[in-house]
């Protein structure tokens, strides 16, 4: 195999490697006859090699330098010495040759087909990239689903055990309007959960290439396929999704008793806001389940979601608003809202600041 990458495409290759390095520690390189990926037929002998991501990444480490000084990049597979040879041609005729040794070559074939996925979303990568920005860097998984009003919701995902602990008490949610999507072929209520780190990695590559990202997905548990394509490149990122049981009804009943105790004079109901200001009302649950308090952030084009008149309204607890997105991972119900009014009305039971996490002894 011999291939040549020229000019600014070397930087694109470098960015692809950087992006892939956030997904795995090993890279499989496979030359394709006509540039199209095809699953192999049994018995076909293909030349493939597996190399350490770290080694390959070190060649493309400085993207700025790649752009400034590299004119061409030659990649070839040297069977005899089991080496992947990457040669960078710089300005002034200077050449750098890297001989990376293969790890053991094993046959690898990912079986996936975007065509078999019933649900499709497409949006400029930038929109999705901006949507994941507020999520904590340490967050492992995120849930993507279609919510009320055909809005695409991204919400941080927590294991049930984690959700019960008071230390991991923050959930972030972003909601994107249908109008930002070039294609939205999925019914309300569907949702999948996948790893955020890898999602961020593929998003950064798609953003840098300035391409739209298409997400093909199916039921939870089936792989989700994220694709980017243009005339020069074709990217398919396949991520596993969480297989979830719906325990929605359980949660609701256990929080019921506490709901009454927590209601106060504040009657404002955020759920009655404009349909554009979609917020999931949360209730803190206390007792055996511990307590959680979650803020809710809404990405809306309009300013309606916290512009209710009067200081009271921003600080109150919501009446039960049990309209979680059906089909999503078990909704956690929370009472306190993140946006607290600095001007505390005198009859606020919680003092000047909204309580974001209940004490486990049930105060407040």
């Amino acid at each position, binding site marked *: 195999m011999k291939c040549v990458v020229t000019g600014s495409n070397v930087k694109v290759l470098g960015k692809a490697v950087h992006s892939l390095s956030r997904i795995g520690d090993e890279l499989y390189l496979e030359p394709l006859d006509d540039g199209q990926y095809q699953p192999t037929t049994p018995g076909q002998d293909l030349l493939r090699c597996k190399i350490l991501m770290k080694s390959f990444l070190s060649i493309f480490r400085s993207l700025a*330098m790649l752009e400034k*000084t590299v004119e061409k990049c030659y990649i070839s597979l040297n069977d005899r010495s089991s080496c992947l040879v990457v040669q960078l041609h710089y300005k*002034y005729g*200077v050449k750098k040759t*890297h*001989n990376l040794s293969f790890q053991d070559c094993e046959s690898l074939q990912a079986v996936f087909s975007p065509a078999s996925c019933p649900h499709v979303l497409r949006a400029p990568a930038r929109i999705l990239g901006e949507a994941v920005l507020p999520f904590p860097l340490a967050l492992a998984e995120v849930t993507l689903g279609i919510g009320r009003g055909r809005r695409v919701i991204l919400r941080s995902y927590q294991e049930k055990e984690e959700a019960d602990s008071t230390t991991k008490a923050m959930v972030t949610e972003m909601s994107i309007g249908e109008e930002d999507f070039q294609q939205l072929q999925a019914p309300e209520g569907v949702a999948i959960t996948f790893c955020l780190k890898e999602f961020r990695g593929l998003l950064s590559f798609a953003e840098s290439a300035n391409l739209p990202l298409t997400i093909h997905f199916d039921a939870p548990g089936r792989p989700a396929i994220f694709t980017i394509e243009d005339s020069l490149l074709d990217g398919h990122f396949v991520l596993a999704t969480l297989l979830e049981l719906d325990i929605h009804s359980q949660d609701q009943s256990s929080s019921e008793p506490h709901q009454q105790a927590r209601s106060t004079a504040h009657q404002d109901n955020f759920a009655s806001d404009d349909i554009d200001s979609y917020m999931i009302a949360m209730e803190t649950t206390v007792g055996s389940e511990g307590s959680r308090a979650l803020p809710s952030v809404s990405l809306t084009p309009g300013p309606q979601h916290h512009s209710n008149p009067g200081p009271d309204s921003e600080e109150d607890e919501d009446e039960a608003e049990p309209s979680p997105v059906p089909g999503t991972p078990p909704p956690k119900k929370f009472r306190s809202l993140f946006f607290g009014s600095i001007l505390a009305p005198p009859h606020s039971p919680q003092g000047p600041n909204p309580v974001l996490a209940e004490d486990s002894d049930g105060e407040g």
Partner: protein
Amino acid sequence: MPFLTQRVQAETDQYCFVASLDNVRNFSTILKAIHFRDHATCFTTKNGIKVTVENAKCVQANAFIQAEVFQEFLVQEETVVFRVNLTVLLDCLSIFGSNPMPGTLTALRMCYQGYGHPLMLFLEEGGVVTVCKINTQEPEETLDFGFGNANVTSKIILLSEGLREAFSELDMTSEVLQITISPDKPYFRLSTFGNAGSSHLDYPKDCDLMETFQCNQTQVNRYKLSLLKPSTKALVLSCKVSIRTDDRGFLSLQYLIKNEDGHTCFVDYYCSPDEDVPAAESPV
């Protein structure tokens, strides 16, 4: 600093070495380029000052600052030699901070009374004066690499900009840096052998970066990368570098550095080849 000036004037005769500089950075920057060990030996003659640092008896770096760089330079004896802690010296020279406000200069006056006395530094910036006394030590023998022009087998002069990025990106998992200089391809090659595999950086003899290329016989030598990596500091400051090897495989790197006032200073690195000399790698 009237009081100090008076004291200094009265003592000038006592000093065997006095040097003054309007801009301390013209001295400290060059010293940073050879700062890979704590101690340095300073040799002063009427021509200037040479500061030497050595490591492992295999590598030696010298910084030459000519007398012309200084506003005042007096050496009473033939040569004045002393050994001093270079880390401490650099800390004192940058006592007013290493990032000065644009337009402000820190002035330096260095005085040395001779054997047994400390090195005195007077630094002044914006009317504030600092006096430092640094203890000196017995000068130690410095290596003589015996690098004469007679036994030089190859000489290359390159523009530093061509090597800077290459040196900063050298695979540090490699124990050695192999330098190949040949009248045939690949002409000038820097190679490393790291955990992932080998890397070779080739410079053609006719490339624009290459000012001079003289080579009679192919030579392949290996040097411990950890000993040569500090030379990157000198490379970054320099505009040109001369690379020479002799028939024993010893390496001489000479860096031409222009300081802020436009004066030329030199830094050189000498390195002996690595003990376990392997067979040369065949070009890829």
